[in-house]
C-alpha cells in the first residue's frame, strides 16, 4: 500500500519550505527512518525521512522548489503501485533556474534594493560564504548579490534570514532609480527620498535630459578605471633610454623585405618581456592578499578602438621571437578595432604596456590594470642632450613611465626593474635577432 510523505510544518510561522536536496532517487529502496530529502526553512535545514520501508515511487518536486507545508513530497510503496492519487495540485513555485549563473533579471523584476557602490562589484562577489538554496533563491528573486554577508548557518552558511536582514538594511531605491541602475547607473550610499529612498536625482550619472548616457563598454572602462585607483597604491617612475639602437634596428627592419613589419612599440615590448623574465616579481597578480606568480608572460597592450580602450593580451610572450610578438600584436589590434576580438583575448594579462609616444606624449601616468601590479607607458622619442666624456651630445631618447602597485612593489625594486628595461632597450640590437 503506497503512502505519501508530506512536507512537515516545522514551526508556527512556517508556511512553505524549499527542497534543498534529494538524497534518494525514484526507484531506490529505502527503509523507515532513512533520509530521503533535505528541506530548508528560511532559518535552517531539516531532513525528511521515509516513514515506512519501501521503494521511492515518485518525487513530486524538483530541487529548489518552494513547497507549501502538508503537501505530499514523495510516495513510498511497492513498484507498480499508482501514485497519481497523491500527486499535489500545485507544482510548488518553479525552482530558480540555473541558480548559480542565472542572468540579471529584467527591469520588471528590478530590485527595490541595491547595495551601495562601495560593495557593488560583480567581479568580486565570489568571495562570499556558501548560500543555502533558499538564500540563493532570495538573492535571485531580489537581484541582490552582496559581496559579503555573514552567515548564521552551520559553517557560516548564509541562510535566507541573513540575506533578508541585510537586504532590508540597505536604502530602498525608487522605481525610476532602479531602472537607471539596470541601465548601469551607480547607486549612491544615501538617498534623499522618503525614508532615505534613493531617487534618480541622487544618482551621480544622471544628468537629466541634457546628458548622454555612456555606452556599456564605456561603463565597463569607467568601472575598471575607478577600481584601479581605489584598490591599488599606484605610483609612477619616469625614466628615459637611449633610443639610438631602437631607431637603427627599426631602420634595418624597414629596409629588409625578409622580416615582417616590427615597430618601435614591438621592440620595446620585447625588451620588457625579457626584463620580466629576469624580474618575475613584477609579472604577478595580486588577488585577495595573495601574490600569484604569472604562468608565462602574458602582455596586455592598450589599444585605442572606436568603442574605447581595449586591452588585448598576447599570451606566452616569453616564448615568442620579436617577429612573432609583432605579428600577434598586429593581429589582435586589428581584431580589437574591428570588434571581432574574442573575450578570451581580452583577459588574463600579467603585465601591460601602453604606448602614447605616437601622440608625442613625453610622460604620463598609466593606470594599473588590477590584479596586475605593473604597467609600462611608452613615450615619444625626443632629442636629449647628454654629457659624454666632457662633451655635450644630442641623442634620441625614448621616455618610459612605469606605474607600480606600492602594495607589492617598493620604489627601489621598481626602479631597478625600470633600469633593467632601459638597459635592454639600449642593447636592443643584441637582444633581438632579426
Amino acid at each position, binding site marked *: 500500500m503506497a503512502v505519501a510523505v508530506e512536507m512537515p510544518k516545522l514551526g508556527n510561522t512556517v508556511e512553505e519550505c524549499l527542497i534543498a536536496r534529494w538524497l534518494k532517487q525514484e526507484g531506490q529502496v529505502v527503509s523507515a527512518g532513512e533520509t530521503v530529502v533535505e528541506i530548508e526553512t528560511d532559518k535552517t535545514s531539516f531532513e525528511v525521512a521515509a516513514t515506512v520501508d519501501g521503494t521511492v515511487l515518485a518525487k513530486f518536486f524538483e530541487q529548489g522548489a518552494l513547497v507549501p507545508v502538508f503537501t505530499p513530497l514523495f510516495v513510498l510503496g511497492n513498484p507498480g503501485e499508482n501514485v497519481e492519487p497523491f500527486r499535489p495540485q500545485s507544482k510548488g513555485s518553479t525552482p530558480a533556474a540555473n541558480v548559480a549563473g542565472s542572468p540579471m533579471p529584467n527591469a520588471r523584476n528590478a530590485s527595490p534594493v541595491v547595495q551601495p557602490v562601495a560593495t557593488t562589484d560583480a567581479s568580486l562577489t565570489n568571495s562570499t560564504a556558501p548560500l543555502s538554496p533558499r538564500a540563493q533563491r532570495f538573492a535571485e528573486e531580489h537581484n541582490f548579490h552582496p559581496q559579503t554577508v555573514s552567515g548564521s548557518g552551520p559553517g557560516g552558511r548564509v541562510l535566507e534570514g541573513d540575506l533578508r536582514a541585510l537586504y532590508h538594511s540597505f536604502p530602498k531605491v525608487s*522605481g*525610476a532609480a532602479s*531602472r537607471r541602475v539596470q541601465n548601469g547607473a551607480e547607486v549612491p550610499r544615501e538617498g534623499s*527620498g522618503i525614508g532615505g529612498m534613493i531617487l*534618480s536625482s541622487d544618482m551621480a550619472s544622471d544628468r537629466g*535630459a*541634457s546628458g548622454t548616457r555612456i555606452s556599456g563598454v564605456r561603463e565597463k572602462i569607467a568601472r575598471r578605471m575607478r577600481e584601479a585607483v581605489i584598490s591599488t597604491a599606484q605610483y609612477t617612475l619616469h625614466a628615459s633610454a637611449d633610443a639610438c639602437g631602437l631607431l637603427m634596428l627599426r631602420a634595418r627592419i624597414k629596409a629588409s623585405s625578409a622580416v615582417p613589419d616590427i615597430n618601435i612599440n614591438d621592440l620595446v615590448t620585447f625588451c620588457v618581456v625579457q626584463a620580466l623574465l629576469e624580474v618575475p616579481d613584477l609579472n604577478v597578480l595580486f588577488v585577495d592578499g595573495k601574490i600569484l606568480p604569472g604562468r608565462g608572460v602574458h602582455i596586455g597592450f592598450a589599444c585605442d578602438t572606436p568603442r574605447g580602450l581595449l586591452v588585448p593580451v598576447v599570451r606566452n610572450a616569453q616564448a615568442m621571437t620579436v617577429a612573432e610578438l609583432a605579428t600577434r600584436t598586429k593581429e589582435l589590434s586589428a581584431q580589437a578595432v574591428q570588434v571581432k576580438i574574442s573575450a578570451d583575448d581580452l583577459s588574463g594579462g600579467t603585465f601591460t604596456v601602453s604606448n602614447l609616444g605616437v601622440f608625442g606624449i613625453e610622460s604620463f601616468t598609466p593606470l594599473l590594470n588590477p590584479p596586475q601590479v605593473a604597467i609600462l607607458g611608452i613615450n615619444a622619442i625626443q632629442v636629449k642632450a647628454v654629457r659624454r666624456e666632457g662633451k655635450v651630445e644630442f641623442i634620441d631618447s625614448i621616455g618610459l613611465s612605469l606605474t607600480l602597485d606600492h602594495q607589492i612593489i617598493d620604489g627601489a625594486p621598481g626602479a631597478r626593474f625600470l633600469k633593467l628595461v632601459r638597459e635592454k632597450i639600449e642593447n636592443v640590437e643584441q637582444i633581438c635577432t632579426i
Partner: protein
Amino acid sequence: MYDLIVVGAGPGGYEAADHAGKMGKKVALVEKEQLGGTCLNVGCIPAKAFLRSSRLFRDCCEAAAYGVRVGAPEFDMPAVVERKNRVVATLGKGVQGILKRAGVEVIRGYARLISRNTIEVAGSRYQAANLLLATGSRPAVPPIPGIQSEHTLDSNTVFALQHVPATMAIIGGGYIGLEFACFFQEIGTQVSVFEMLPQIATGADEEVSARMLQILERKGIEFHLSAKVLRIEGHTVYFATQEGRQSSVEAEYILNSTGRVPVVDDLGLENLGIDFSSKGIRTSEQGKTNIPGLWACGDVTGRRMLAHAATREGMVAVNNMFGRKDRVRYNAVPAVVYTHPEVAMVGRTEEELRNAGIKYKKSVVPMAVAGRFLVEHEDGTGLVKVLCGSDFGEILGVHAIGNGCSEFIVAAAIMVETEMCVADANEIVFPHPTVSESLKEAIAGVH
C-alpha cells in the same frame, strides 16, 4: 532656555511644536492671535465650511435631477457663518489639546527677535537653542486706488458677511479667488472675476486650467482675463480690458483676492542679518535660514504657501535641528483647489516639463471613465492627466479636475514621491466603484 521656540501657531508652527514636544524637547509656541493660524481661522477651514454649505444649497436646487423633490431652498448666511465658527472653535480646541499633550508651552503675545536665540514677548525675554519662524502671511494689498474702501473685502473679512450679496466683483483669479467665486455663484450672487493674466488658476496644468475656465463660465461666472483693475470707486471697479479699452463693473462687494504676502515686517529680522525680502525668508530644503539656529517654515518662506507644505516644512526643520536628516521634496507636494469641481494636482505640469526639456509621455482620460463619478455627479465633467518620463515611465505629475479628486491625489503624491513607474503603478488595485479609478485608467492609458 528652551530647545525650540516657534513663532506663529499656524499649521506650520503648531505641528512643528507638537512634533518637537513629542521628541521630548522643551518647546514654547508664541501666538499673537488664535491658535491654528490662517488655515484654521481665516483660510482653508472656514472656506471649506462655506463651500460645504453652498454645495448643499446647490445640491438641493438640483435635487430633482436625482429624483428627489425638495422645496425652494434658502441660504441662511448668519447660520452658515455660525456653523463655520463652531467648526473653527472645535478645531481650535483640538489644537490646544494637541499642544498640551505634547507638553508645549503656549506664550500669548507678539514676538520680536532680539538675537538669534532670544525673543521678546510682552516685555519678557525667552531664550532657545533654536528659533522657528512660522509667522505666515496676510492678504496682499495691491496698489489699486480705493482697494481699502468700505465695500472691499479680503479673505479675512469676507467670512463675517451676514447676507448673500446680489453681486460680487472678485479681483484675482487664483485659487482663493476661484473658491470664493464658486461659493458666491452657488448661493445666487452674480460674480465677476478680474484676472491680470490670460488664464485662471495660474500654476495649475494648462489643460486643467482651461477646463476649469470653461466649466465655471458655464456655471455663470463672468471672467475678465488679461484685465487690469485701475481703481475702485464706491461700488464700481474700473478696469482696462486686454485691448486697452476702459470699462467698469458695479458690484455690491468687491473681494480682494490678489494673493498673500509673507509676514516679515516688525519681527526684528533686519537686526539679525537674516536673508529675507518682501517675498519671504529664504530657506533651504532643510528649513534652514542663513543664520545658524534660525529656521523658518510655511508662508513666511514664500515657497509653496499651502498649509500642508507648511506642516511638512516645520517637521523637516525640527527633524534637522535635532539631528534627524530630512528635506522637503517640493516636487511631491500636492495642491488642491476646492472649487466645484475640485482641482487636485501633484508634481510637474506639462508646461514645466516642456520648458525643462524633459521628454515625457502623457495620458488624459475623462473622469467619467469611473462609473462612480457619473453616479455622483449628474452632468459631471472632469479629467485626469498623468505625465511620466518617456524612458522609464516614472510618474512625474498628475493633474485632475472633477469632484472627488482631492481625496485621491495623495495616491498620486506617493507615486511621484517614490518615482513609481507606470508599469509598477498598473499593479496597484484601486477599489471599485470609486472616483479614484479614473486615476487608474489614466495611468493604464500611458503608452
